[in-house]
C-alpha cells in the first residue's frame, strides 16, 4: 500500500467520522440531557457528559405523563395495523402472483395506482367517515385507515411471483386449500418480504404524528410521538430532563429494532424506491 492510498483512506475515514458525529449528535445529546440534573442542564457551562447518572428524569417522565400508556398505545396500534395489513395483503398478493383470474390486471392496476396516493390525500374524507361512524378517539380510528396497504400487496406480490409454480402445485396435490397454501406455504416462503414489510410498517406508524393528531384528542389514546408533544406542551420547556428521558424511551425501541433488523430495512429501502 503506497502513501497516496493511505492518505486518501485516512482522509475518507476522517470526514466520514465528522459527518457521523454531527448526525449522531442529537442522539448523544438526548441521552446526555436525560441523565443530567436540572442544575447541570441550566448551567451556562458547557458539559458534554452528565456529571452523574441522574435517573430521576426517567422516573419523573413516567410520573408526569402516562408514558407507559403511550408506549402501550404505540404497540397496540402498530401491532393492529401490521396484523390487518397482512391479513388483507398476503392473500391478495398470492392471488396476483400465482393465480389467473378475471380482473387480475385491474386489481394489480389498482395496487400500482394506490402507490401514487400518499395517505395525507385521503385524510379529510376518511376523517369524515370515521366521524360518521363515531369512531374518533378510538384505536379503530388509528388502525382502520391503514389496513389496505398497497405497498404491502406490491412487496408480497413481487416476492411471491418468484416462487416456482411447481411448489404451489405440490401443495395443491398434498391436499392444501388455496387459503392453506397462502398461510402455510406462500407466506412462510416469502419471509424476507414479510420482515421487510413489518419493519417498514412499524417504523412508519410508530413515528407517525399526522394521523394521530387528526383523530385522537384523548390523552389516554395518544401514540408515543403525540405523547411527547403533550408532555412538552404541558411543561412548556421548563422540565428538559424528563422530556429528554421520554424522548429517549420512545426512540429506543425503534433504534433497537433497527439495529437488529438493519439488513432487511436497508434491503427494503433499496427495493422500495417505489414507496418514496
Amino acid at each position, binding site marked *: 500500500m503506497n502513501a497516496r492510498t493511505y492518505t486518501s483512506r485516512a482522509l475518507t475515514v476522517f470526514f466520514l467520522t465528522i459527518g457521523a458525529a454531527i448526525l449522531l449528535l442529537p442522539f448523544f445529546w438526548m441521552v446526555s440531557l436525560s441523565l443530567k440534573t436540572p442544575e447541570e442542564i441550566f448551567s451556562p457551562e458547557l458539559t458534554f457528559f452528565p456529571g452523574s447518572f441522574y435517573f430521576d428524569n426517567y422516573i419523573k417522565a413516567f410520573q408526569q405523563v402516562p408514558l407507559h400508556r403511550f408506549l402501550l398505545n404505540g404497540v397496540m396500534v402498530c401491532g393492529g395495523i401490521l396484523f390487518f395489513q397482512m391479513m388483507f395483503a398476503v392473500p391478495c398478493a398470492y392471488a396476483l402472483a400465482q393465480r389467473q383470474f378475471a380482473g387480475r390486471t385491474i386489481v394489480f392496476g389498482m395496487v400500482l395506482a394506490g402507490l401514487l396516493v400518499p395517505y395525507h390525500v385521503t385524510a379529510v374524507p376518511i376523517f369524515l367517515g370515521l366521524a360518521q361512524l363515531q369512531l374518533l378517539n378510538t384505536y379503530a380510528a388509528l388502525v382502520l385507515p391503514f389496513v389496505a396497504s398497497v405497498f404491502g400487496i406490491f412487496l408480497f406480490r413481487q416476492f411471491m411471483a418468484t416462487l416456482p409454480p411447481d411448489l404451489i402445485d*405440490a*401443495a395443491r396435490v*398434498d*391436499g392444501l386449500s388455496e387459503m392453506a397454501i397462502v398461510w*402455510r406455504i406462500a407466506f412462510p*416462503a416469502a419471509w424476507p418480504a414479510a420482515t421487510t414489510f413489518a419493519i417498514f410498517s412499524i417504523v412508519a406508524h410508530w413515528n407517525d404524528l399526522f394521523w394521530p393528531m387528526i383523530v385522537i384528542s384523548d390523552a389516554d389514546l395518544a401514540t408515543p410521538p403525540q405523547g411527547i408533544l403533550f408532555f412538552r406542551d404541558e411543561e412548556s420547556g421548563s422540565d428538559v430532563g424528563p422530556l429528554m428521558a421520554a424522548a429517549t424511551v420512545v426512540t429506543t425501541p425503534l433504534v433497537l429494532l433497527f439495529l437488529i433488523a438493519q439488513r432487511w430495512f436497508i434491503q427494503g429501502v433499496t427495493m422500495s424506491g417505489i414507496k418514496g
Partner: protein
Amino acid sequence: MIELRNIKRQFGQTTVLEDISLTVENGSFTTLLGASGSGKSTTLRIIAGLDTPTSGSVMINGQDVTQAPAAARNIAMVFQSYALYPHMDVRGNITLPLAMRNMNRLERAPLLNKLLPSARQKAQNHQEQVESIARMLEIEHLLARKPSQLSGGQKQRVAMGRALVRDPVAFLLDEPLSNLDAKLRGQMRGELIDLHKRTGKTFIYVTHDQAEAMSMSDQIAIFMHGVIVQKGTPHDLYERPATKEVAAFIGDHPINFIECSVEGNVVRGPLGIFVLDEAVSCQNVVIGVRPEVMELSSETAVNGKVERVEYFGSKATASLSLSNGQMIQVVLEDTSTLPETGSACGLSFELSRAHVFDAQTGLRLDVKVAACVQDAAAE
C-alpha cells in the same frame, strides 16, 4: 382404475390435447412418453386435478372427478423440480400431506393442537409413518435438514417420501429423474421399479426418455403433437410401431429407413428386391430395419462400404454407406473381429423383424417381408 375419456385441452386458440383417451389399470406402471410440448405433462396435470380439460372427463375408480380440484383427489405427485417446501425441514415436508388429509382444522392449528389429545395421538402416528418411509428411502439422517442443505439425489428421495407417505390412489411422476446425473438416474430407475413392485400402487410416469419408459413400464402411451399415437406394452411398441415416427422414437439405436418403390407385392430399393407376403396398394413404402436386427454378411452380394466403426466393449456399431449414398447403421454383437473402415461389405437382416410403412402417410402396413429375391449389387 383411472380413465381419461376424450380429453381435449385448449389454451386460447392453441389446442394442446386432442381427444386423449387412456385407461390405466390399478397397480400398473404406465408411462406417458413424448418430446417436450407433446402434451404429456398437461395430461398428467389433468389427472392430478391441477388443470381442467376443455372437454372430456377424468374417471377415478368409476367416479367422474373432472370437476374436482387437486386437493380433493387422493393423488400423490413428484415434480421434476422436486418442489420441496423451502421453509420446512425434511420431516415437515413429509408430514404435511399426512396432516392435511388426516387432521381437521382444529387439530392442525399451530399451538392449539398441542392441547388436543386426538391431535397428539395423530401426530404421534404420523411421526412413526414418516420415520418408516424415511428408513425405506434411507433418508433417516436427513430428517432435520432444510431442502437447501440437500443434494439433488437427496431432494429426489424426499420428494418421493412426501408422495409415498400417504396412501394415494396413484403416484404421478413428472420427469422425476431428469435433474439427476446419469449414474444416479440409473440407480433411481432400479429403485423406482422395486418401489412399484413393493407398494403395488398405480404409477403414472412422464418422461421424454424412451429408455426409461421401456425399462420400467407395463404400458406406454406415446404422445406426439397433442395426440396419443400409440399405446401398448414396451414389446408392442418395439415390435409393432404404429407409425414411422414411433419406430424412430423407440429403440436405443436410431432405426434405418429405406425408401423403396413397390408394385403389387414386389419391393425395389437400394438393398435389393424383396417380396411382401401380401400386395399393397401404395406406390412407395419405407422399410424400417433396426440396426440390431441387421448384420454384415459375406454370403450376400457386396452392397455397402464401411465408413465408421464405433467400439463399446460389449458391442460395436458400424456405419455403412449404400451405393445411393444413404447411411445405414448396424449393431455388431460379435466384437472379436471388426470390419476395416473402407472395406466393402454385404448386408442382411432378419426379414420378419423389418417394418413396412406407407411412405406417404407414415402409417404401418400390416405386411411382412417374405423373401429376398435379389440383392442390390447383383442387379
